[in-house]
Structure formats: structure tokens, C-alpha cells
């Protein structure tokens, strides 16, 4: 049986539930990209919060401390067949328990570690490589990450810029995180932010020229040591695909100071 889900994590966990309580899954696929074939039967799964919560809890209790983290990060990856990779990992994990992450080279463990690591690395990278621009009303950042990392960025910036209003926009997936700058509700440990889907890219260019943008470009140019110039090294850290949203890689003409 092939299970099709709606792309959400809850939907995915509901498929795992059906895998154990209805019929074992041959594969799990996002609904949009599924190609039905004559050989396989398939079923459209509607996300069920209770079923999802039950699977979530089971993973937390029966597998190691890092497993849930690994599974969620792998789920955020933009990777073909990530659902099957996670399914294999979970099946093995329920049998092995907390030792699963020690089998680094196991064919059902290694691929999951690999994609989870890629997402972790990209999240960390974008904590630095994200640029807000100030349009007078709120801060706005635009990025085009390889993986769906918005949920992992939101907490960091909600903590760091807790009194600011900001939007982080993922132009590849037409999604955005919104934070309104309010202090957190009493008794809650997490600050509230929202992920919304966008129809069109947001239009929030900074109206007047922001003097700090020019200062930053100047700083970026002046900090480099000419005799150590090494553009290949730089490209390892800042791949060219990220550069169109990075202010400092815009052309800069320096007047002689």
C-alpha cells in the first residue's frame, strides 16, 4: 500500500500510524507528485492530530534522544524519497531502540544521518547568511535555501530580535515567517511566530536609502586583506547560489576615503 500525504509533518506521522495499525506501507509520497501505477494500491491519508501525536510520543520514548531531532530535520530536507528513508529508519528504530544512532554505516541509518546533517548545516549557515533590510515599518529578509529551514530559523530570531517586527521570506517555497515583536504570553516558554503561505513575493523594498547598507558594504570591502585574496576559499563558504540575497555581494563603488 502506498500512502499519500499532504506535505505536513502531522500528515507524515499519520501515515506512519497507518503503517503500523492498518497495512504496512510500501512507500509514503507527497500527494502532488504521486504517479499511480497498476501494481500498487494507494490511499490518501488525512492528517490526524491524535494519531500523529501518538507516533511522535512513541519515537520519543522508544528511540534515542537524537532520533526525533534527526527525523524532523530529515523531513525538512528537499530530497527525493526522503519519506522512504525516514520510514526505514523508524522501522529499524522501533526494533533496535536507543542504539540505532550508533550504527552509523547501516544502510537504513546512514542516508538519514546524511540528509539530517545537510539540513542542520544549512540552518546553521543561514543563521549568519541572512540579511534583514529595514523599511521603517519592519525588518524583512529574503532567502532561497535548499531545504525548508524556516521553522528552524524562527526561534533563533524571535529570541535574538524579540522587540523587533520582522518577516523572513522563503522565495523558493513561497512561505514566510512573521513575528510581531510582542513579548511572549505569560506562562509560555516559546515566543509566538507564524508561518504563512504567500501567493506573490512580498514587495517591501526599503524606500529611502538605508545608510547602514552602504556602511556594511564598505566594511565588507575594507576588512579583506588584499595580499591574502582567495576567492575560491570564499566560494566554499558562500556558494554563489546564495549570493543574490546577500547585500555585500552587490556591486560596490568605493570613493577614495
Amino acid at each position, binding site marked *: 500500500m502506498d500512502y499519500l500525504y499532504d506535505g505536513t509533518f502531522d500528515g507524515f506521522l499519520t501515515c506512519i500510524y497507518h503503517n503500523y495499525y492498518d497495512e504496512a506501507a510500501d512507500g509514503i509520497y507527497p500527494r502532488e507528485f504521486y504517479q499511480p501505477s497498476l501494481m500498487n494500491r494507494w490511499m490518501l491519508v488525512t492528517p490526524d492530530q491524535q494519531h500523529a501525536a501518538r507516533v511522535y510520543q512513541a519515537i520519543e520514548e522508544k528511540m534515542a534522544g537524537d532520533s526525533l531531532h534527526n527525523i524532523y530535520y530529515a523531513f525538512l530536507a528537499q530530497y527525493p524519497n526522503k519519506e522512504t528513508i525516514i520510514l526505514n529508519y523508524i522501522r529499524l528504530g522501533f526494533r533496535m531502540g536507543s542504539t540505532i544512532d550508533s550504527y552509523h554505516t547501516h544502510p537504513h541509518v546512514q542516508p538519514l544521518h546524511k540528509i539530517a546533517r545537510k539540513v542542520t548545516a544549512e540552518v546553521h549557515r543561514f543563521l549568519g547568511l541572512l540579511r534583514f533590510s*529595514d523599511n521603517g515599518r519592519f525588518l524583512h529578509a529574503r532567502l532561497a535555501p535548499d531545504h525548508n529551514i524556516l521553522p528552524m530559523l524562527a526561534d533563533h530570531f524571535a529570541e535574538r530580535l524579540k522587540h523587533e517586527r520582522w518577516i523572513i521570506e522563503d522565495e523558493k517555497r513561497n512561505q514566510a515567517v512573521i513575528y510581531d515583536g510582542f513579548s511572549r504570553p505569560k506562562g509560555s516558554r516559546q515566543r509566538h511566530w507564524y508561518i504563512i503561505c504567500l501567493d506573490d513575493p512580498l514587495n517591501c523594498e526599503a524606500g529611502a536609502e538605508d545608510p547602514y547598507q*552602504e556602511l*556594511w558594504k564598505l566594511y565588507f570591502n575594507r576588512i579583506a586583506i588584499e*595580499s591574502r585574496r582567495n576567492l575560491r576559499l570564499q566560494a566554499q563558504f558562500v556558494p554563489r547560489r546564495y549570493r543574490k540575497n546577500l547585500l555585500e555581494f552587490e556591486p560596490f563603488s568605493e570613493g577614495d576615503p
Partner: protein
Amino acid sequence: MDTMTKLSVLTGAAKYDVSCASSGVSRGNQGKMGSTSQCGICHAWSDDGRCISLLKVLLSNDCIYDCRYCVNRRSNDVPRASFTAQEIADLTMQFYRRNYIEGLFLSAAVEKSPDYTMEKIIRVLTLLRRTYEFYGYIHVKIIPGADPLLVQQAGFLADRMSVNIEQPCEQSLRLMAPQKTLPMLYSPMAQVRDEIKTFKEDRRRLRHTPKFVPAGQSTQMIVGASQDSDMTILQTTSHLYKIFGLKRVYFSAYVPVNQDSNLPALATAPPLLREHRLYQSDWLLRYYHFQVEEIVDPQHANLEPEIDPKMSWALRHPEFFPLEINRASYEELLRVPGIGVKSAQRILRQRRMAAVSNDELKKLGVAYKRAQYFITCKGIYAGSHPFDPVTVRRILAPQPQATQLSLF
């Protein structure tokens, strides 16, 4: 003078400082803006491939000292500028809001006197921490010769402090920076070390004891300005880690900025490879349980440029190899060229489940190309050539490039 010009002059004057780490302290946003992360965050990489994590500027480049290697020495004719405390604080806050930087790295030339300069630095830090309630990362330079009370005051406001010793021995220091002495540089280091210890102990009893320099101290040495060997540099490095408990010692390949009979000529390229090998040795000291005497000794006073220091050690100690992966201790695994901290830990975890084989090593992240000659798996040696230092060196060291012979 406008901010643009000042930033240009004072960044250009600060760029030879290498330290840019924002790591070592994890703290939430207890004020209005800013937090820090344990592993540090890099925000950009400049054209020389070095990371930009902090806003690295001098408060002023107007110096009373005349150190020969320094671009800001008194006798140099360069444009001079000074920031006001307000200007630096505004730049930091505005850059930080836009996520350009992780915090501030504030250094200063010695203007008028060490105490005067240190007071000015403290004014910036107070403005940021108290008025703006900034909780991002701050790294600050200790001005040697400043009053211990001022150093202490700055220590409560900063995350990391550093004194640059610049030269590895008294002799070179006297030659290069005639107004400085080693005791003058070591005494603030000792002070910070002692106070970190005191306040840490007090915190265990009294929860509200303020934190003092929570990310520890670091220092930097210039490589290639004086004639010192790698052995001198590494011995000093190890000494600094042991005596002062430093978090990091940085090396800075000297970029000739001044014409001087004691310095390399202006056209000399900075010794980047040497700097790289020194950093590799530094890692061996800090993470790989190596002692200085194992990396360099009087017969091998300088590191080999062709191969890394760990490989160099391994080829000088063939009696240690080949090593059985499934029996070796963690410390022994770390000695194998091609196995690093992460892959050694993975090997330890995995072999608790089942013996590790040759094919699996690659999947565990081992650089098999190098490791193959130094190990056995389940008793089997699988290197493409027999283990013999001369052969292995020939295979792994880069061959000198073939050049056209001169006809004349």
C-alpha cells in the same frame, strides 16, 4: 570626519587582527537585543576567505607606540581617526539588527596612555550593555599597562578578552616592539585568569555573582616577521595554554606593511602555508592529545611544508603502526592520519555494536586515502602499498611541479 571615512580608516587598521570567533558562551536574550550561541556564528566571508563574525574596528588608530611590524606605528604617515563611544555603539546595534554581525570586536591603538584608552573602551561597553541592553557577543582587547581595576571593569562587560603577545620570545619582542616587555603582556593575562577562577568559584555559592569574561581569553602571534622557528612559536603556544588557560592562540601570517631592516621586504608574500601548518599543530595540541615535543624538536625545528604535522609525526614513528582499528584506544585512533575527532568517536560507537571493516571506514568519514597505510581492520592490512615511511611519503606528499629546464 563622517562615519563613512572613520569606518574605512579604522577597519583598514583593524583587519590584521585575526581572531574573529564568537564562540564559547551560550546566552539568551536577557535584555533588549542579542543572544550568543555556544558554537559561534559566522555571518559573511570576505574576499580573502576569512570569516566575518564580529564588527572588528579600532576605537582609534592614533598610537603612542612604535612597534615595527604595526601599520599604526607612531612614525607611519597614515590617516588617523577616532570613533566616539556613541558612534561605535550605534554601528554595532544597527549592524546587529540587520543580522550583519554577531557582535563587536573592539580594539584600540594606545592613545595618550593605556589607562586613557582602557577607560574609553569601557565607555563603549557600558553604553552597549547598560543603555542599549545589548546581549550579543563582545570581544575586547586589553591594553597592556592599563590599571588592573579597569581591566576588571571591562571583564564584567565583555565575553572574551585578549592581549596580543605578537612575538613568541622576549628577544624578538625587544627587537620589534621596543616599548613592550613580556611581563607587561603576561600580567593582565594572569589577572584575568585568576579572576575568572575566583568568580567561577563564587558563582557556585552565590547565584548572583556576575559572570567574568565567560568566553575566556585568547591571544595572537605574528608569524614570519621575526626569525623565530616553528618550535619557538609552538612551545610558547603550549606554554600559554598550560599557564594561562587560554581558549585560543591565533597565528597571523605577517603581511609586510612597513619598510624596516629587521622585517621582510615589502614585496614578500605572507607565509600562508606556514600559518596553516601552525594551526594544524595547534589543533593537535588542543584536540588530539599531542605534546609539543612530539610535533617539533631541535632536529625538526620547523614544520614540513609538504605534509601535515600529524602525517609528519606518523612517518617518523613507524613503530606505532599499523594500528588495529577495532582494538585501539581513542587516543591511539586520533594519532592515525586521516582519522579526526568526529570519525574516531563514530568508530568507538560503531565498534561497540560490531567490528568495523575497511569498507565501513569510508562511510564513517575517515579519509581512507591517507588512513589506509596506518591501520588494520579485523587484522587485515588493506593499503595499496606495504607500510613503509619512504613509500608512503612518496605517495602522499605532493610531487614538486615539473618545470622546464633552462636552456642556458
